[in-house]
């Protein structure tokens, strides 16, 4: 066993156990154990378990976000101090001061680096588990030779073998795999694109938008589809289902975070304040219906494409002059 194999061994064992567990569950529910769909659902189940295990970290983030409200005025002060200063040294000084503020307040809205790094070995382990299974080799733990056989021969919808990548699809002339892989690449790109766009367009302060980092992120947004295309060429569609599900999970989670806990001072924060204000207004309106009546504005004029007949000055006065 090579170096990485030794390090990844425990993770591989757990991943196999989860995969086989889901496979057993879906088989018990009446799905064909050798069908591609059963295996795809097992992979999706694996993603759900992995991401659900990371939820406590996520909740932790929500809690510290609440504390952020307390430091918001001071944060605003720092942001104002560096408003319009775009050079690298000002940006760094601003980051340093912001971080010092968090430290003093004993709160930190950032997610930390470890959760990202934890997911990398999981993905590599999954890749290695599925890669060995497609070579018809039994796994390190619960993935028996029989199950490996089933995976090797599993085809999605009876036409697309899970073990094929886009390159294999071209080599063996398998149109179904090519179509599925390309659709997945498009969906993955779209979801990643949307996630990035949400973060960049809505959850950043105007100061952050002026930073060089932001420009770099924008360029990257257009490189991503190429990255996914290449990974789609190399990874078998079985592995890609992991990535796809994980991407969609991130997208939804990001949407919820940005909606409910936006970065103070960002567009999303303004939108949230507007939403809350509107809700409060509505509540008041319900409480005091008569008040709402008097406050209600005149109804918007219906849009019309018809040309208005020009009216002479004198006639306009006679009509009441309430035009315009």
């Amino acid at each position, binding site marked *: 066993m090579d170096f990485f194999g030794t390090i990844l061994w425990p993770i591989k064992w757990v991943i196999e156990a989860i995969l086989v567990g889901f496979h057993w569950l879906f088989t018990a529910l009446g799905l064909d154990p050798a069908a591609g769909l059963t295996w795809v659902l097992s992979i999706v189940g694996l993603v759900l378990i992995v991401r659900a295990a990371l939820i406590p*970290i996520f909740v*932790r983030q929500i809690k510290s976000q609440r504390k952020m409200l307390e430091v918001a005025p001071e944060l605003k002060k720092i942001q104002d101090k560096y408003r319009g200063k775009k050079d690298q040294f000002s940006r760094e000084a601003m980051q340093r001061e912001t971080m010092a503020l968090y430290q003093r307040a004993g709160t*930190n809205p950032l997610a930390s*680096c470890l*959760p990202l790094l934890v997911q990398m070995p999981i993905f590599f382990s999954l890749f290695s588990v599925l890669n060995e299974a497609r070579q018809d080799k039994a796994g390190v733990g619960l993935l028996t030779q029989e199950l490996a056989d089933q995976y090797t021969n599993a085809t999605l919808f009876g036409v697309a073998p899970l073990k094929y990548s886009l390159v294999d699809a071209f080599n063996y002339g398998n149109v179904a795999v090519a179509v599925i892989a390309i659709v997945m690449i498009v969906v993955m790109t779209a979801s990643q694109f949307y996630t990035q766009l949400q*973060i960049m367009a809505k959850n950043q302060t105007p100061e952050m938008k002026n930073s060089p980092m932001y420009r770099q992120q924008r360029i990257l947004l257009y490189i991503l589809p190429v990255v996914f295309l290449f990974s789609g060429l190399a990874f078998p569609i079985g592995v890609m289902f992991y990535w796809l599900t994980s991407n969609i999970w991130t997208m939804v989670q990001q949407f919820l975070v940005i909606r409910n806990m936006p970065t103070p001072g960002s567009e999303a924060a303004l939108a949230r304040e507007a939403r809350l204000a509107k809700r409060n207004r509505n509540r008041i309106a319900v409480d005091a219906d008569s008040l709402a009546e008097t406050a209600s504005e005149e109804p918007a004029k219906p849009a019309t494409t018809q040309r208005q007949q020009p009216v002479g000055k004198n006639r306009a006065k006679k009509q009441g002059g309430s035009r315009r």
Partner: protein
Amino acid sequence: MTSVGSFLLLLPRNICVAILRGYRAVISPLYGDVCRYYPSCSAYAMGAIQQHGAVKGIALGSWRIMRCHPWARGGIDDVPESRRHHDHYHLTRFGFVAAGHGKG
């Protein structure tokens, strides 16, 4: 002769610097701001490798990443200063380490 020697001596850390620059340009922006510390983990690792060399720098960087978990307090955490680096080396614009103390 000394320049060849120092080039070879500094080669491992400069390879690491190049890799980290690549990471910070391509992969880091994917995640946005996540690090609970200033400087961020990758910036810290880069500084540590520049100042202390590949072996100690990687050790310092790894220790930092281990500390950057959701229950960590975070905050300002600078790379420990290296007297030797300050006296004998300087950084190029790209971030590579070169012999001679800057200013020239």
